[in-house]
């Protein structure tokens, strides 16, 4: 019988992204400690369940955010697991690939770290069974090579063989160690612990090939419960994974139809009865009530919602998006889309060569990279379009 935990993409110490707004103090604290508390939950569960091993297939933490604190917290976690006789297997992914090349604290000998070349590491469980783990660590951020060819087929002398793989489905030449499900199945392993994709996904039932998702959601697109898989063959039906939620803070999205007032919004949100700290992204479908519309126009809707949120609530609004507002008033400004190719004009204007002329040397690299990225380009173009729409409406208001 074998029992283990599969936890990909812990991203220990990584801050939450995209939090533009102020947070309530208890949320502030919870957000700052979220990844560490998720890890502590995992460790406590591992010890309580007396698992044989814990698998971390990549992105245990971000090299860019590595710190003494993170190293100390990892040391505590690993020491607890080692003291309980639990083996830990670590491979480094695209976010922490430098971790394998840089020094870190001396981890207990029960912590098995995979090198850049594919390796096999074997250990004996408490019940005397031989488990072989096969894995590798990234040597670069993109890792376009696929080391799967170097994974040997199942060791027939082992009672269990498990593969750790940080990568994405794809074709040779793609980023992040591309692989196919067929390639993994050809190795005849008992389980594939995947990492890299933050959404929990099952690629194959038996043998299990699956992403556990990240341990804690880090931005508002990573909604729902996050955690790890507890895997066991106690029922003698092969290795079966059971999801265990571990994130102390959850991102959620909520769509409200035609809210008539601010109070109505608060009531509908409260009715969701969130059981744990939840950072909430709201989408309001128009038409909106007058007070709500006024708040939208005055650009204070989110602040108003936050002010109206009860002090002991388990949720906190972080974003409000309004859709399908619509307007039937005519504008005196000619519709730019009818004047010419607005889309092409916006795309041309958002070309980075043009944007660079508006940026001084003090603009940091991350921002420049974002502006050059497809996501940044799309966001800027949307903003310009919204501004043009708003311009028409503003001009129309002036005309009245």
């Amino acid at each position, binding site marked *: 019988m074998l029992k283990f935990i599969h936890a990909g993409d812990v991203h220990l110490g990584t801050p939450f*992204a995209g939090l533009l707004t102020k947070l309530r103090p208890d949320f502030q604290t919870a957000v700052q*400690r979220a990844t560490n508390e998720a890890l502590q939950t995992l460790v406590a569960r591992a010890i309580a369940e007396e698992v044989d091993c814990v698998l971390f297939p990549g992105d245990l933490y971000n090299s860019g955010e590595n710190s*003494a604190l993170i190293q100390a917290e990892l040391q505590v976690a690993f020491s607890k697991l080692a003291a309980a006789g639990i083996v830990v297997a670590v491979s480094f992914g695209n976010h922490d690939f430098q971790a394998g090349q840089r020094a*870190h604290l001396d981890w207990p000998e029960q912590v098995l770290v995979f090198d850049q070349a594919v390796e096999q590491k074997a250990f004996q469980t408490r019940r005397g069974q031989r488990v072989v783990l096969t894995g590798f660590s990234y040597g670069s951020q993109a890792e376009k090579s696929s080391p799967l060819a170097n994974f040997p087929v199942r060791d027939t002398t082992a009672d269990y063989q498990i593969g750790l793989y940080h990568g994405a489905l794809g074709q040779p030449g793609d980023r992040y160690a591309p692989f196919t499900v067929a390639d993994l199945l050809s190795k005849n392993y008992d389980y594939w612990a995947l990492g890299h994709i933050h959404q929990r996904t099952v690629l194959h039932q038996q043998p299990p090939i699956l992403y556990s998702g990240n341990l804690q959601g880090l931005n508002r697109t990573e909604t729902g419960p996050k955690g790890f898989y507890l895997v066991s063959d106690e029922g003698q039906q092969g290795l079966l994974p059971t999801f265990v939620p571990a994130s102390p803070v959850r991102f959620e999205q909520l769509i409200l139809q035609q809210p008539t007032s601010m109070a109505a919004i608060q009531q509908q949100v409260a009715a969701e009865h969130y059981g744990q700290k939840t950072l909430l992204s709201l989408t309001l479908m128009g038409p909106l009530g007058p007070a709500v519309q006024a708040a939208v126009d005055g650009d204070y809707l989110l602040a108003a919602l936050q002010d109206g949120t009860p002090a002991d609530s388990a949720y906190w609004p972080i974003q409000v998006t309004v859709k399908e507002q619509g307007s039937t008033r005519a504008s005196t400004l*000619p519709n730019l889309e009818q004047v*010419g190719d*607005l889309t092409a*004009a916006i795309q041309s*204007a958002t070309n980075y060569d043009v944007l660079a002329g508006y940026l001084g040397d003090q603009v940091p690299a991350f921002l420049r990279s974002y502006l050059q990225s497809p996501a940044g380009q799309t966001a800027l173009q949307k903003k*310009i379009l919204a501004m043009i729409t708003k311009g028409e409406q503003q001009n129309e208001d002036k005309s009245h």
Partner: protein
Amino acid sequence: MKIKAIEMTGFGRWSNQRFEGLANQQVFLGGNEAGKSTMQAFLLGMFFGFQRKSKKQPNAYEPRSGAQYGGAITIEEKGQDYRIERKGRQQSQLTITNLTTQTALSDPTAFLNQLFGPFTRENYEQIFSLTSADLATVATLTGPALEQKLLAYTKPEALAWQEYAAAQQQAAWQQYGKSKTAKKPLNLALQALTTTSERLAKQQGALDRYLAQDQALQRQRAQLRQLEKQRAALQQRQQHLQRLRPLWPAYEAWQGLQSASADQHPLITAEDEERVATLSRDQQFIQQKLAELAEQITAAKQDQPAVAVDPVLLGQLSQSLVQVTDLADHLQRRQAQLAALTERFTKELPDPLSASAIQAIRFLPWYRWAALFTLLLTGLAALFGQNGFAILLVMVTVCFGALTYFGQQQQRKVAAAYAPWPVGQAIQADIQSQVINGQLAQQSLPALQADLRTAEQDLVEAVQAYYQARPSAQQSAVPTTGPALQVLAKQCLQAGQQQEETSSGNLNELLKTQANYYQQKGTVNEQLTTLLARYQLPDLATFQEALQGQKQVARAKERQEDLAQQLTAADRTTLAQFTTLADLTEQEQAVQTALDQGAAAIQNLQDQVQDLQVSQRSLVSAEEQAGLSQQLANQKAALTEDFLQYLSQAVMPVVVDKVFYPQQGQQRAQIQAQTSRYFARLSKQHYQQVHLDSDQVRVLTADGLTFVAAELSTGARDQLYLALRLALVMVLAERYELPVLIDDALVNFDPGRRAVVLDLLTELAQKEQILFWTFDEQLAQGAVIDLEEKDGTS
């Protein structure tokens, strides 16, 4: 628009002056002070409002005559006539009347705004108002502003969007400045981000220190463990030495006993000791008795005259006689035995048979029959032509034949030697055994005989010694062998014994006793000697010494064993390292010193470990680290959002331009091409092309040389700017038909070029009204108004 009439009520030198029926190409001729510039200023004032007096504009054109400031113009616009009237300078009153419909416009300003579109007074002067002094002002239109200006001029619907875009851009400039010293909100936010990054980097820079400190901590802990291990070993040694110090005397004693207990002699057993003691006592007793007997015999001899034979001699004689008798008897018995056995055979005693002989005889019948059988088989084989088999059988037959022959030979021998015994009985074991015994007996005879001869020789010597003691007793020669010698010896013995018997009983008794004692003494001595020889000791004294020594060694060993209970083997091994107690004490002190040093080193290391732990804890500042990290993420998110906002506002004019003019520089190209054509004509094809770059104007000669505007001669530059102005007017004329005001703009042109300009103006006049003020009569062609004829008043 076309200006049909100009009516100056009061404006500078002009008062109540009217000019009517102005042509499309209208020349106003007049020298200096003729009021050319005044008239132009009046027209601009009518279009855009009278300018206030200022440093830039010191001339307010106050009417010299004191007439009411202002005037009116009549224009034709889109087929309708309008009268534009402006009265007053400070707060001029503007009225516009549609002369066609005779209605006053409710919003004359709007009419004018619409009439002149996006053009401000400045724009109008830059493009439509040409003077020699400000030809160059068109150069300010080059650059990025040119496109936007052109867009504004040619597509007025873009104006609103341009205004919106300009407002957005202004808002963007309020948010961020590109220069390093800008203090706009986004600049400050970037600085805050940098500060947070630096603080976080310090935290993250602490990682290297943390890891290094952890490595140092582990090394120090390992050192500490090592030192503590050493200390434990030293303490153990110290305790050991402290425990051993009082045992030093015992150790010294043990060492001393070590040599004492080394005994090289064979160990005398208790039984032998007892035996020796007994023999020694016997020896002493016998000695004592012999001493007493010697006195007694001496006394007895004094009473006996007879000379006694030495009992020792008699004893020796007796002993030799016994020996000879025994040997003779033994020999006799042996010879009898041999004779008895030999009698059983016809000849002498045969030799015992070998096993092969016995076997040959036993199996002789079998060999005989076998030979016959194989012979028969040989005949049959030969008969049947089996020659090979027959040959083999012949060989077998020969073998059996040989065995048969050998057996028969042996049988004959046995029969001869063992006669009269049959061969069958002769080879039996009992007979063979008797034969063997007989042979052995026979072989032992010579040795027996030799021993007998030796014993007889000893007997002869004993007899001769007796005769020597009693010469009178010898009556014949002493035989050397045989029964005669035995008889003679016996006679001597008996005589000697009889002599003793005939002596007085006491002396004989004494002598006899003495002899016994002597014999006993001999036996005791012999036994003692044998016993001492076992221990390689020459005499009893040495034996006693050895025994004493052995006892001392035993005592020493006992003592050693006692000491061994106090001193273990390990203790002894340790103490053996030291020569004296002082050495041991010195070692104790050295260990103590090492312990003290070790304790100091341990304390030092513990302090260092503690310092490192404190330092590590300070590097792991949970709250600050996590807070900074999230703060940085938040700042980045906010900056991303704000910069998206900033950029979307900043590039809005670009978006608007792109929408209205998808091809960048479309208008620019048009103007550039037109300017090139005009300039080529003005320069008589010397300059072929004009390039309007983003920051300057360049010209290309027919020879392929390139010059910037500043490198041209004054005349060429004026031509260039004039060409540019006229090109702008021509392009803009597609949208705006506004009168072009030219005031002595050709002063720097030579006559030939002036003619070219006039041709150009004539062409332009097809589309735009040209009002041309000049002092040059040669340029006064077509419709001319001579201002000199006007005195400023009507």
